[in-house]
C-alpha cells in the first residue's frame, strides 16, 4: 500500500465543497484516515478498462395530473415555513 498523505487543509477544502463544517479535531482525524482509505482505493489502478454495456432504458409515463401530497403535508417536516413555502436561513 502506497503512502498517500492528505493534509487537514485538503480535508477542509473537500468539506467546503460538501457543505459540512468540521471541528479541528475531526479535520485532523479525517486527514489521517483519508490517507489510509485513499491508499486502499489506489488499487483500482490495476483494474483493466472494461466495456460495460448496461441494459438501461428510460422509463417514461404520461405527464398527467394526479393525486399528490397536499401543501400542509409537504411542509409538515420543515422547521420554518411562511405563506405555504419553505423558509431558508435569513441572508445577512
Amino acid at each position: 500500500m502506497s503512502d498517500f498523505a492528505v493534509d487537514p487543509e485538503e480535508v477542509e477544502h473537500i468539506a467546503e465543497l460538501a457543505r459540512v463544517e468540521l471541528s479541528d479535531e475531526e479535520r485532523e482525524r479525517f486527514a489521517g484516515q483519508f490517507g489510509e482509505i485513499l491508499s486502499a482505493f489506489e488499487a483500482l489502478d490495476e483494474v483493466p478498462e472494461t466495456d460495460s454495456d448496461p441494459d438501461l432504458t428510460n422509463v417514461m409515463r404520461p405527464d398527467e395530473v394526479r393525486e399528490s401530497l397536499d401543501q400542509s403535508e409537504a411542509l409538515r417536516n420543515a422547521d420554518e415555513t411562511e405563506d405555504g413555502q419553505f423558509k431558508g436561513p435569513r441572508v445577512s
Partner: protein
Amino acid sequence: MAENIYITETTIEGADDGPLADRTVAVKDNISTEGVRTTCGSAMLDDYVPPYDATVVDRLQTAGATITGKTNMDEFGMGTTTETSAFGPTDNPAAPGYVPGGSSGGSAAAVAAGEADLALGTDTGGSVRCPAAFCDVVGIKPTYGLVSRYGLIAYANSLEQVGPLAPTVEAAAELLEVIAGPDERDGTTRDAHEHGSDYEYAAAADGDVEGLDIGVPTELLDGADERVVEQFWAAIEELEAQGASHHEVSLPSLEHAVEAYYVIAMSEASSNLARFDGVRYGTSGGYDGNWNESFAKAREEGFGEEVKRRILLGTYALSAGYHDKYYKKAQDARAWIQEDFDDALSEADILASPTMPITPFELGESLDDPMKMYLADANTTPVNLANLPAISVPVGDDDGLPVGLQLVGPAFGEKRLIRAGSALA
C-alpha cells in the same frame, strides 16, 4: 428491552386477512411509515415523520402483517455493526456483548430475540446478509429491481434493495413473496415473469439440492478466518450429503470489490445526502447568514462521523481531477465483476462463500478503525455491484459466535437460492 432493537416501538395494524395476517414484522428505520417517525438512525431526522408509506409498507399492510416498530440501524445505512446509530448500539441477542452486524442490525436482532416474527432490512453492500449471519438468522438480498425502493430513504440507489430477515428460509421466502414485484413509483423495478421466474418463493423452500452444482470462489475464502472457513466447508459437506456437488472457481475481479463498492457508494451518498440541509426537513440549527455556512453548520450538527466521512470521500472521488481516477475506475471494476459472475454462473448453478469473513466484532471494537470495518464487507459487496440475488443462511457457530453461509445466484434466481438454502435452515 435490553438490546436496544427499536428506535420507535409502535403497532401498525394490517388488513384482517392476507398471507401475513398472523405475523408481526419489524421494519428498518430508513423505510418510510406514514405518521410514524423515520430517523435513518440519524440525529438529522430525529423528528422526521413521513407523510406517506413506502411501497413495501403498503404491501405488508395489505398482506395483513402487524408492524411492531422501526428498528435501529447504522446511520443512513453506513456501517457494518449498527454502532454508528445516533440512538446507541444494539446488542446481539445471539451473542451478547457482540455487535449484531449492520446496517440492519435492529431488524436481525428483532428476529433473533423473537421480538418480531419477521423483519425488513435494506442491503446496499451486505446490510441484510451481515446482520443475518451475525445474529444467526436468514436474510435475503433480492436481485436489483425485484423489490420497490419507493419510500426507502436513499443511500446509494444503484446498489440497494429492501430484503427480508426471518428465522427460516421458508419464512423469509414468504415475506419476499409479499414485497416483490413491479411498482410504477420505482422505475428501476422489473417483473420477474419477464426474466424467467415467478413469485412462488415459499413453495420453492423444499430443500431439494439433488444434482445442484455449487461453485466456490477461492477469492472469498482467502481472507476469511480459519474457523469461519471450517464452518463453511462443513455446510458444503452437508449439502453434498444431500446430493449437491461443488467445484472451485476463480473470480479475480473480486479482489477489487471493496474499493469499487466504497467509491461508488460514497459517491452516490454524497449526492443523495445533499438534500439534508435543514430547510425542508431535518435539523436546521436556526442559523442565519451565508446560506452555505448555515447549511454546513446544520449538517455538522445533524450528521455523525461515519456519515461525514463518507460524504467527504464521495465528494472527493467525484471532484474535478479525481473523477476518472476513482469513480470511473470503480465503474470499470463493477463491469468486470459482473462479467466474472456471469462466467462463473454459466458453469455452476449457484456460488457459495462465507457471508462474513469473520465472526461478530465485540461491541466497540471496530468503531475507531473505518478500514477494518470496510474490509469486513469483502464477500457481500460484490453481489450488490453485480445486481445479483443472495441469501445468508446460519450454518453453526464458532464458540457461540454465529457463522453464515452466503449463496449467490443468477439475476432473478431467488427460487434457486431458496431451494438450496432451505436444505440447511
